[in-house]
């Protein structure tokens, strides 16, 4: 059983399109995140949710909108995709904001 699963694993789309990435965790954790990993492998937090409530929203274009229907799910919707959005997006969860983070396999987004 995968602890943190995100879909799709690969996503290739054209500029201007809207796309969503889904994430689910079965660990019973209270906190979920979205991270972006760029081509230099730098992992930067985008959003953090605790029990469906947004607690961290780093400087991210408002084209990115997270949605948490329940504490086991955190989806990421991206509007009007741009070339610079190409990256690997990781969903993660943890019991608290600073405890061990469990990561999904990542979604490699390529905008062409």
């Amino acid at each position: 059983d995968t602890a943190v699963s995100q879909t799709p694993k690969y996503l290739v789309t054209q500029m201007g399109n809207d796309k969503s990435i889904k994430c689910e965790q079965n660990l019973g954790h209270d906190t979920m995140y979205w991270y972006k990993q760029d081509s230099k492998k730098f992992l930067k937090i985008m959003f953090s949710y605790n029990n469906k409530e947004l607690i961290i929203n780093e400087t991210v274009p408002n084209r990115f909108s997270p949605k948490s229907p329940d504490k086991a799910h955190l989806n990421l919707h991206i509007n009007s995709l741009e070339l610079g959005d190409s990256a690997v997006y990781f969903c993660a969860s943890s019991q608290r904001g600073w405890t061990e983070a469990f990561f999904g396999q990542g979604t490699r987004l390529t905008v062409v």
Partner: protein
Amino acid sequence: TQLLEQSPQFLSIQEGENLTVYCNSSSVFSSLQWYRQEPGEGPVLLVTVVTGGEVKKLKRLTFQFGDARKDSSLHITAAQPGDTGLYLCAGRDGSARQLTFGSGTQLTVLP
């Protein structure tokens, strides 16, 4: 947001060699974690250190947290090709509700 600098950024060594990766910050952390990320996968936790001066061993890997809790190191003895991966440190300061990740060290161990 605090900065965690890792060095070296890239490291390529032969199987059997020893190596050390460093994670440095100007800020104090209440705890620090090390993760390893393999290609096509998400990072996986290796260890958490919480006390200044703490040393933890995980088989051939030795992790140390600096006395002042501003830096950490990861030493690998007799590296093997299976150690290849991206090593990330991540720290939490006393007030932050999140982890801040370091810049990463890409390690390649050649057979």
